[in-house]
């Protein structure tokens, strides 16, 4: 399946672009996606936290991703 991952803040700077297009096996979990991105972009492992958002909600590690999902990487938030 093809996924588009939106990137923000320091995650965008580490990856060097504001979104990533990935072709992943059907049934890839949030945790597997994170692991793959951290291997590809080691700077992501240095962050205080790194979450995945799926359709505007924080996703759990075991959730399985689907092609139509809106996915984003969420580095430590600092609003307010």
């Amino acid at each position, binding site marked *: 399946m093809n996924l588009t991952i*939106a990137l*923000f*803040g*320091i995650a965008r*700077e580490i990856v060097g672009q504001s979104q990533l297009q990935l072709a992943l096996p059907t049934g890839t979990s949030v945790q597997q996606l994170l692991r793959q991105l951290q291997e590809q972009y080691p700077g992501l492992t*240095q*962050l*205080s936290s790194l979450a995945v*958002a799926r359709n*505007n*909600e*924080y996703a759990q590690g075991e959730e399985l991703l689907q092609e139509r999902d*809106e996915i*984003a990487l*969420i*580095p*430590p*938030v*600092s*609003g*307010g």
Partner: protein
Amino acid sequence: MLIELTDLPIDVAAVLQAMQADGAGAVNTFIGTVRNQSTGRRVMRLHYEAYDAMALHQLRRVAEQAQERWPMLQKVAVVHRKGTLAIGDIAVVVAVATPHRAESFAACQFIIDTLKQVVPIWKKEEYEDGTVWVAAHP
């Protein structure tokens, strides 16, 4: 419920207007502004970036959580700024109206505290000699 993410200066008077309710005796407002220093470094300006769709969704959810926790909450507003801000500029305004004052303080504080934990907005501080994404690294 007034939930907004804006590139323009926040109109505090409009937020306060939105708090008017005949049964509300207490309005608590929190205004977060840009400080001229952070962890001892002189800040020149701030850059806020948001994941707009999710930020609005999460801001609304935080406001709804406050309404569930304080059912007497009559009005609530959360407005967050985006883009480049100068020292003294307003980054966020939270306002709540309740019949009595204790709940107005508690609900307003709950909203800003929760906002800072969950809403996907990021702040980059600009110093004379560089920039840092706040809270990004341990």
